[in-house]
């Protein structure tokens, strides 16, 4: 009895199958109580279907706008992702493709197996392993052991024949510390021939070298940040006084660590300083100060301040780069062919061109006299210019009434000629108001050992 009552609502809604309908229909036909129940259900249903409050819709336009905006946003998002992906791909290509190519050039086709062996040698810096690495390179030079000097080994990353990493090796091969004098054999072309364009002083962009198969040897210590070597003209000192030397250099300009950089040992720094002095002397410059780098490593970061004639500063900077590149301490693959050839064993370089250097400083008394003379000459020139302007104006006015060969016009022209002569003489005798170019420049060279290893 209760089963068919559960189906009354479904019967009324037409949701019953035939069997269910037949069963309920039988009860409906024969039982007035069932009919009454069905009528009541129907009445409730009718009231609910027709009598409920119908909220009046609002916000349709807003929804349509939101839908169109969402569609647009999605299209923009897809476009943005596509663009981003494209840029990322291009960036990755730019970053890694040249390095891979550069690696191949530098390694000269070194096989992965050889690299792996070198990596193993680096990972376990025992004496025998280091010696093996040196033998593999065919140089006979024993790689620098971090256990002995606290400096990361160099030779494990050197190309065969690149024994000039070490001062001892360099000297042993006949290369005295001063071998990098300008014009000396072996100096790079760009560094020894002719003046170098000023734009060579633009900042160096470190190019990450290949990192394959390299690992940090134990005991190599923390990895300090900062440049390994900087060559940078100093900002000029305003005014005419000579700068107090040596000036405090401050901390080394932070440079993104060059993953392919090698470490300099103290002797290499000493050799670099010697080379710098020779190059500076050959250019008529002067080393005016050598000081320890503030915050430098215990094994000898140095800052060398060089004074040189302003017009020679770019050439000197270029030659310094070349000289240091010859020693394997500088690499500038974008500007320096020598650096390119020794790229895998070179260190990071950063050059910066700052403001122009100060002008030569006259003595205070002379400075005062010259100042007075200059002001007098300036006053004369101004007066002459005014007179000349008046004369020219007078000539134009005369020409309105007279021919050019009229005596009055000729007189004025003679006056104009005389004034022009006087003005030219006055301008010649007066010193330039502002020196067009500085007479001296100061170049700062920072030699800083770095304990980082390639692969960083």
């Amino acid at each position, binding site marked *: 009895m209760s089963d068919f009552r559960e189906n009354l*609502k*479904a019967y009324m809604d037409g949701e019953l199958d035939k069997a269910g309908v037949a069963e309920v229909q039988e009860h409906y036909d024969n039982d007035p109580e069932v009919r009454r129940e069905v009528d009541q259900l129907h*009445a*409730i249903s009718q009231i*609910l279907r027709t009598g409920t409050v119908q909220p009046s819709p*609002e916000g349709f336009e*807003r929804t*349509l706008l*939101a839908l169109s905006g969402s569609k647009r946003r999605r299209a923009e998002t897809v476009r943005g992702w596509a663009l981003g992906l494209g840029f990322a791909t291009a960036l990755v290509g730019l970053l890694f493709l040249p390095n891979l190519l550069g690696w191949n050039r530098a390694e000269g086709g070194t096989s992965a197996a050889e690299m792996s062996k070198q990596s193993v040698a680096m990972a376990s810096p025992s004496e025998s392993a280091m010696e093996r690495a040196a033998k593999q390179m065919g140089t006979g030079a024993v790689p620098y052991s971090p256990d002995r000097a606290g400096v990361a080994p160099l030779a494990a990353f050197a190309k065969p024949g690149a024994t000039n990493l070490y001062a001892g090796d360099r000297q042993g091969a006949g290369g005295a510390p001063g071998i990098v004098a300008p014009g000396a054999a072996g100096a790079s072309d760009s560094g020894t021939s002719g003046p170098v364009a000023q734009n060579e002083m633009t900042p160096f962009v470190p190019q990450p070298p290949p990192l394959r198969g390299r690992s940090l040897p134990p005991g190599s210590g923390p990895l300090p940040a900062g440049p390994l070597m900087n060559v940078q003209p100093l900002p000029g000192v305003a005014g005419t006084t000579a700068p107090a030397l040596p000036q405090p250099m401050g901390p080394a300009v932070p440079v993104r660590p060059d993953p392919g950089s090698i470490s300099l040992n103290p002797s290499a720094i000493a050799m670099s300083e010697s080379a710098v002095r020779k190059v500076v002397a050959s250019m008529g410059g002067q080393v005016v100060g050598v000081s320890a780098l503030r915050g430098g490593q215990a094994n000898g970061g140095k800052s060398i301040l060089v004074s040189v004639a302003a017009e020679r500063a770019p050439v000197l900077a270029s030659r310094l780069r070349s000289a240091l590149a010859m020693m394997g301490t500088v690499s500038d693959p974008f500007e320096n062919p020598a650096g390119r050839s020794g790229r895998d064993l070179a260190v990071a370089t950063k050059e910066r061109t700052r403001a122009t250097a100060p002008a030569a400083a006259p003595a205070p008394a002379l400075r005062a006299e010259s100042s007075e003379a200059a002001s007098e000459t300036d006053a004369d020139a101004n007066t002459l210019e005014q007179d000349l302007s008046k004369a020219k104006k007078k000539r134009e006015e005369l020409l309105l009434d007279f021919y050019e060969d009229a005596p009055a016009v000729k007189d004025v022209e003679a006056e104009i000629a005389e004034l022009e002569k006087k003005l030219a003489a006055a301008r010649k005798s007066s010193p330039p108001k502002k020196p067009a170019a500085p007479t001296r420049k100061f170049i700062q060279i920072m030699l800083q050992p770095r304990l980082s290893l390639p692969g960083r």
Partner: protein
Amino acid sequence: MSRPTLDIAQIARDNYDAVYRFCARRVGSDRAADVAQETFLTAQKALPKYRQESSVRTWLFGIAHNECRRIVRQKRLETPLLELDPAKRSQEDSEETLVNRQALQTALAKLSDEHREVVLLHEVEGLTYEEVGVVLGVPAGTVKSRLHHAFLNLRKALEPVGGGR
């Protein structure tokens, strides 16, 4: 076999009113527009996955149902009462003789959420049992059972006025 291409703007034009009312009866008129909009935005995202196994309106009600539940939970909203329109009293004289509207209104307010939901979907929105099951994610048999019990409760509430069995 190829399905007709669906345009969300056209779907919105055809179904916005129904979706709005559906939402208004569950979250109130003040939030109905926002929830309806959110429903269509969700539908726009889900349109590529819509398999057209149910009607568009049923599919939209399913999305709206989830949106309303989310809002109700999030805002801790009270379920609004299902109001009967007094203006239509005169047209339902025949039903009035059997059912006291005021008592029905009170009985509707006492329904559980499950029963109220099936009553709304079937009686007010006009969905079949199958469609109500799709919207609620339950079988049609469950819908039938819930409807039966909902109407049983309504009838019990109306018994004294209706004259009893």
